[in-house]
């Protein structure tokens, strides 16, 4: 820190060499006067950003915190079923439910049915074990007329399913308000009868596959935008400003049209009776029977997303390339490098800050992309965000949506961290 060139170094040594602390002209200690002078400036700066800070806290941080909280907290079962929840808390996982457990269950369902909350309870268990919501609601209806001991026999008489150990395992998993079961479910895992973490049935394993597909497709789209965007950005950077501004409008034009319009126009182009197929048939590349399927699958998602995200790659690249003095490449050429060597060793390394920023931007946007895969993706082109949306609006399992989103967020943050370690975030140039 205190190098010979550091202007503070001289002050530090001077202060250290004098016994009495320095004072201002009117006798105040210097450090206190300095602190007061800079405190006022700090406060003024803080007041300037305070409105935005409050806005972000209210509209961004708090809802996201709320959402993340939901991913680990769901009291649909535990709040409405206090007695059986207490029994689960006292016993080990894998304990066979005894008479006391059935008594607690019957009383809880009866009370819940009277409070009209048994549907919520059923929905919570339904997340763990699909098809059980109706079991709770029908049992609740029957129990409202009263129930007599022995409870075990009474419950089994209402429905044989109450003896199913898997159902009891699901109830045990839901019996605490704070739970990891949504995160386990997001990774295609669950807790079995004995409380051990196991993979779910093969036909229910979707999330890990979707995460992998999302990462793979995002990486591919990022690479495609790089391949297409790099030459364009270079062209924009070397053209005279008047021409490059005109071209820049063409690059930005897609930004000014609605995302929906752009995606639907890709549908017009790519569908089997669409423009591209017609053109290929007209050119004789394919025959009418062999029309290419470029939509409602991954190819459609890749093409449309590459097009839509292209400007996010071009803009940072362009802004960095604009600042690279052409004399660097000239110097390399005069020093004996072929134009390819000059590009590879001199020009390309200097574009890395822009490339890194563009790649990070495109990748992060692609990982969270929703509308395009939903419209042109078909079954094989769906991404994890489509599943999150499905849980938000379809199954209404917000906890599950929150857990999936949190895993996605964590993944992006890890990538960001890796990028920081490899390239350095201060080397990022967004424009």
């Amino acid at each position, binding site marked *: 820190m205190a190098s010979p060139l550091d202007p503070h170094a001289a002050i530090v040594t001077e202060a250290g060499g004098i016994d009495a602390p320095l004072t201002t002209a009117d006798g105040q200690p210097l450090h206190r006067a300095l602190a007061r002078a800079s405190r006022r400036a700090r406060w003024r700066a803080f007041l300037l950003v305070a409105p935005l800070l409050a806005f972000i806290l209210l509209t961004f941080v708090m809802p996201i915190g709320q959402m993340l909280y939901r991913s680990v907290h769901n009291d649909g079962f535990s709040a409405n079923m206090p007695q059986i929840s207490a029994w689960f808390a006292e016993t080990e996982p894998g304990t066979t439910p005894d008479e006391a457990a059935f008594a607690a269950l019957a009383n809880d369902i009866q009370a819940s049915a009277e409070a009209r909350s048994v549907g919520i309870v059923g929905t919570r268990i339904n997340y763990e074990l699909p098809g059980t919501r109706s079991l709770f609601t029908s049992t609740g209806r029957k129990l409202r007329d009263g129930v007599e001991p022995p409870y075990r026999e009474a419950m089994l008489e209402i429905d044989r399913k109450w003896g199913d150990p898997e159902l009891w395992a699901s109830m045990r998993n839901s019996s605490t308000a704070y739970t990891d079961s949504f995160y386990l479910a997001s990774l295609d895992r669950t807790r079995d009868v004995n409380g051990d973490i196991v993979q779910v049935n093969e036909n229910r394993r979707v999330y890990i596959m979707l995460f992998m597909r999302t990462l793979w497709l995002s990486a591919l789209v990022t690479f495609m935008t790089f391949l297409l965007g790099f030459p364009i950005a270079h062209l924009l950077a070397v053209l005279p400003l008047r021409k490059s501004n005109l071209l820049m409008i063409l690059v930005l034009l897609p930004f000014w049209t609605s995302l929906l319009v752009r995606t639907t126009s890709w549908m017009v182009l790519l569908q089997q009776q669409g423009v591209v197929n017609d053109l290929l048939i007209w050119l004789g590349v394919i025959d009418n029977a062999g029309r290419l399927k470029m939509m409602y699958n991954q190819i459609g998602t890749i093409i449309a997303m590459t097009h839509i995200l292209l400007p996010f790659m071009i803009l940072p690249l362009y802004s960095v390339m604009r600042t690279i*003095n052409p*004399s*660097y490449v*000239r*110097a*390399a*050429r*005069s*020093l*004996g*490098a*072929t*134009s390819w*060597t*000059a590009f590879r*060793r*001199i020009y390309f*390394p*200097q574009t890395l800050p822009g490339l890194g920023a563009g790649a990070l931007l495109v990748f992060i946007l692609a990982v969270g992309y929703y509308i395009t895969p939903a419209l042109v993706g078909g079954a094989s082109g769906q991404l994890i965000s489509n599943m999150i949306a499905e849980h938000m609006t379809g199954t209404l399992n917000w906890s599950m949506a929150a857990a999936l989103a949190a895993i996605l967020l964590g993944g992006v943050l890890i990538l960001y961290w890796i990028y920081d370690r490899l390239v350095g975030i201060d080397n990022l140039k967004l424009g």
Partner: protein
Amino acid sequence: MTNTAHDDGFVVFDHVQKSYDGQSLVVKDLNLSIGRGEFLTMLGPSGSGKTTCLMMLAGFETATHGQILLDGTNINDVPPHRRGIGMVFQNYALFPHMTVGENLSFPLEVRGLGKAEREERIKRALDMVQMGAFANRRPAQLSGGQQQRIALARALVFDPKLVLMDEPLGALDKQLREHMQFEIKALHERLGVTVVYVTHDQGEALTMSDRIAVFNDGRIQQLAVPDALYERPENSFVAGFIGENNAINGMIDSLDGDRATVMLRNGDKIDATAVNVREVGQATTVSIRPERIEFKPELMPEGAHTLPAEVLDVVYMGDILRTRLKVAGQEDFVMKCRNTLGQARLTPGDSIRVGWHPQDARALDPV
């Protein structure tokens, strides 16, 4: 460097023309022969075509017409990386993502030199510019003068026969610039390398060069050694561009070989040397250096014509006294006197008579 073997044609521009837009010529019929080991400066105002000439020599621009020869071979179609010419750029163009050592290593790597030889050459080049301790620094961590030295070392590290410099000192402050001028000159003399140097700074050109080519309007106006250029300018542009100059307009009154008498507009007559005037009655501009003007009768040659002058102001500049005079109706006539012990101090309003040796007054083309 002594002025020997200047015309063995190491670099030859043969009727070179250059046009960018197909409508006008930036370089008009350039003919120039540069000797091996020579330090040649292309001097001129911006837009005079000097940098274009340098870029054609480096291979970044192609000549529209004519040939450029390097060591006897036509290099018109040789790409820049095969010309083997070292170049120092105006902004240094040090690769910012490489250390100083890597910058110097680059030209050696692309030539396929082994690691041991590369390191040895880098060390030698850095020592040559007294930057041996800086091999691991990044260019951004160096001062302007240090970057300049590294750029110089990089252009020399692969032992080129020819080094081009495009206003390399333009970004430095005055003191550093003067220091670097001497260092570059010393390096040139030590290594014996041929240097083509482009600048618009006449002081720099006079200090460093073996010969100077003054460019204007796409042509070489005069190609000469520095003292000849200053003392014997061949036209009004060179006289006005190099150093301070008094220009008096008049008409040739009589002509006898290279001796001429010039009639000024107010009817006064002065003596001059005819340079590019041919006949009596022709309009001319007479060029006289301010330090060659005398006002003490005992220092003037016998029979010289003198002119009445009125002192307008005297500026004290330390080593010299710069006196502005009104001569022959012109108010921008400047006389410089050395500030010696006992030098007469003139005051504004004094009336004196000024004169000069006829060979110091050069009758040139009219401005």
